[in-house]
């Protein structure tokens, strides 16, 4: 394993998976703040993105410039195969733990 994957990191990776080709800074930020109802700064997000890239779970490429960005290019993020397998590991660990639960976790 390439290091520990935090809860927020997992969230970011899954969001990127959800957004697919449209996964860039602002879109990720807005998606997270809408779906998870979290206040988040661009700086914090980019820090996490940079860490994930460093760990090898993410790759990035520069896209097309647009007028709403003052003519600047977007940086699109994509999951690497390592990222996907890490997500799977996390999921299977979670599923296992859910299954093994001795109490009823179902909401009534």
């Amino acid at each position, binding site marked *: 394993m390439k290091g520990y994957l935090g809860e927020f990191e997992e969230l970011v990776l899954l969001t990127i998976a959800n957004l697919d080709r449209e996964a*860039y*800074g*602002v879109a990720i*930020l807005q998606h997270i703040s809408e779906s998870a109802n979290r206040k988040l*700064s*661009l*700086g*914090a997000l*980019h*820090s996490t*993105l*940079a*860490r994930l890239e*460093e760990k090898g779970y993410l790759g990035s490429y*520069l896209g097309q*410039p647009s007028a*709403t*960005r*003052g003519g*600047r*290019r*977007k*940086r699109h993020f994509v999951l690497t195969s390592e990222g996907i397998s890490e997500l799977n590991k996390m999921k299977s660990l979670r599923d296992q733990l859910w299954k093994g639960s001795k109490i009823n976790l179902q909401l009534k």
Partner: protein
Amino acid sequence: MKDQPPKLAERLFKLLGSGAFLEDLLGDLHEMYLFKRKSSGKLSANIYYWYQAFRMLLSYAIIKRKRERSLSPYTQSQKHNIMLFNYLRISVRNIAKNKTFTLLNIFGLGLGMSIGLLALATYMELTRFDRFHQDAGDIYRITTRIQENGSKDHFASAPTALSYLAAEQLTGVEQYVHINDHFFPRVKTAGEPLRLNGYFTEPAFLDMFGFPLASGSKSALTKPDMVILTQEAAQRLFGDKPALGRSIETENQGILQVGGVLAPFPKNTHFAFDVLTGFSANHGLNESNPTNWTRFYGNYFYLKTDLRPSQIEAQLASMAHSGESFFEEKNMEASYSLQSILAINPGKDLEDGLGVVFDSPGMYMFFGLALLILIPACLNYGNMAVANALKRSKEIGIRKIMGSPNRQIVHQFLVETVLICMVAVLLSIFMFDLIRNEILGMLAGGTALSFVLSPNLLLIFFLFAILTGIVTGLLPALYFSRITPIKALRNTVNNQRISISGLRKGLLVFQFVLSLAFMIGIGVLLKQYRVSLNFDQGFERENVLVLPIKPEDQPLIANAMSSAPAITDMSFTSSIPGIPLGRALYFYNGNGLDSVLARVVFTDDKFIDHMNIDMEWGSGALMETEFEQVLVNQQLMGRLANIRGEAADSLLAEMAGGKKVRIAGVIKDYNHEPLNQRIEPMVVRLGESELTYALFSIRTNDIVSTMTDLEARWENLFPEEPFQATFLDNEIEKAYSFFIVGIKIFGFLAMLAITISCLGLLGMVIFTTENRKKEVAIRKTLGAGSMRLLYSLSGLFFRMWVIALFIAIPLSYLYYDKIMMRVYNKFSGGVGFSEVALSSLLTLSLGMIAIVVQSTKVMRTNPAENLRND
């Protein structure tokens, strides 16, 4: 686009994140900004942007990107010091490669900056003026604004009546002092009387200001006829002996007692005095009258307060009511304000200023002059650097291709110029050291300045050099940073501009005119000086010894010295011939209506014979008879004849005070004063009590033993007094020392102008030769002789030189012969052929040297060198 995020934040973000890849982050910020702006307005969007940008800067994303950037070998390093070291290394290599170039530039910039240093030093000293008094920030003086018939004047002085009212009634004032600056005792000494500048004041003067007493007490300022001397004045009057308790005999203030001596104090104060006295002394002479409102010249009032100036001014305004009627009588209106003593220098140009004042307009002029000299030097540097572009263009081309941004090229050139300026400033500091005493001597109030090279001042000088370097380097730096690499490598940088613009030619001609004019000026002054020293002024000056004496000692000295074997003749006088005369009196016609002013020399009866002065009529030996006998010169005789018409007795004249004198002889006009004074009407009178100089004619083969003999005789008589004999020619030479000062200053200016113009010429020559390298090479390969380039360049220079001559010669003739010689009284040929020829030849040869050296360099290179790459 209207909806732009805050510019400043964006710029700051770029700056602080310099080097890192920021495009995507900026884009994200921008997008969020627009989004926020739509949802919650401009202000909160701006705040959001600032906050987000700030957070972003601290985030790991940027830190990581910066780190990656600095590891990349092909992009700009974040480690500025490494880059700076690189700039420095390349600069040093370039400087070492172009030694002549660098040397010339250092010389040009060094000279150009020297005047700037002078201005800076003056300004720096002025800002420290009067800071040494205790609580100097709380000391103010009352200044007066007078409005009269629409004209407004601002005086540094204040009505005495107001100052006495203020002293009684002002609240919140800790201390106050009255000063009147009209105290000028003329102290009787051997030789010329010594004129002292002094203030009438109060003991509080010494409490308020930082002038500590070395001996005596401040109560001297309350007793009649007591004075306090500065240490320099005491030294001048009494030498090293204690001055306290001694008395000073003056011509105009009676006998004064020394009641105290001040310890040495800093020179940088606006107060300028040798002696202080109380208002009680000679009260009749000053106008410190408590009921006096409208005549306030020379009366000053200083006060010390913790209150704000406006609070005191309000009190003054209400006090001023009692004086209004006095001013109304004269159709004047007065108002008063406070001026901090720290604001006096450099400060407003006030009327009736006290002591040393350097006003701000004067300082601006000074700085303007400094810039006027510095700017051509900077432009010349820029021109030369650009002219030298071809040598550098390859370096720049390669650097650009290797990925260096324009900024780095700019930095390279700035570092280079700053480096050159730092060396040049050393030369300027040397120049500054050389000329500062002359400049201080010329400046009114220069005695208050010291121009000591303190570490602080040196630091300022170096900062000035850095600034000059940056400004100077900007032109070449921007020029070079814009060169495209292709052009640079193909050597086609300058090709679009082969000819030299008319403006540059004009500038050069102007610089030549200046250098010619200054050089002719030196010639004229030198000639005047030489002629003045050797001119036969009409009296004996060889081997004459001058000895300052006290009039009452005259018989004693005559007795003691007459037996000296070396002395062949002697006489006594009140003023040395060849030195300006201080005294004058009026002659009247019979009815006292018309008058002639005549300079006065008191002598003994042997003076005329001894000095070999020619008489027109009569004899030089004067006698006391019923009427005093006098000698007059032809000038005075002529004027007297004019005003008296046909008087009964043409030899009887009336002097000031109704005193009748008989003219016993007429002296042929001679230059009793220095040659720069015209021969004025002059009268020679007998006057035993006025003879302050003894003149001895000496004939000896052994001057040393003669002098020891004379000194021994003097010491026998006056063991206390120093023996201060000098030779008359030396005294006369001293009277012309202003020529030396003039020559030095002209020499400095000429050197400045010549250097700067030659550098300009050199820049032009290099520019032309470099651009015509290819032409010359092709001509050469086709078999042309190599002189062609030299001819055409010399032709260009020669034309400019001739134009400069045509402007400079009439101009200097006009200025030196018609204006300056009016002041100095023309007695030599003025502008002569030799001065003009010499200075023209000098400029011509300097210019030709520059041209020949440069063009031979181009012509001697193998044509293949210049053509190979095409």
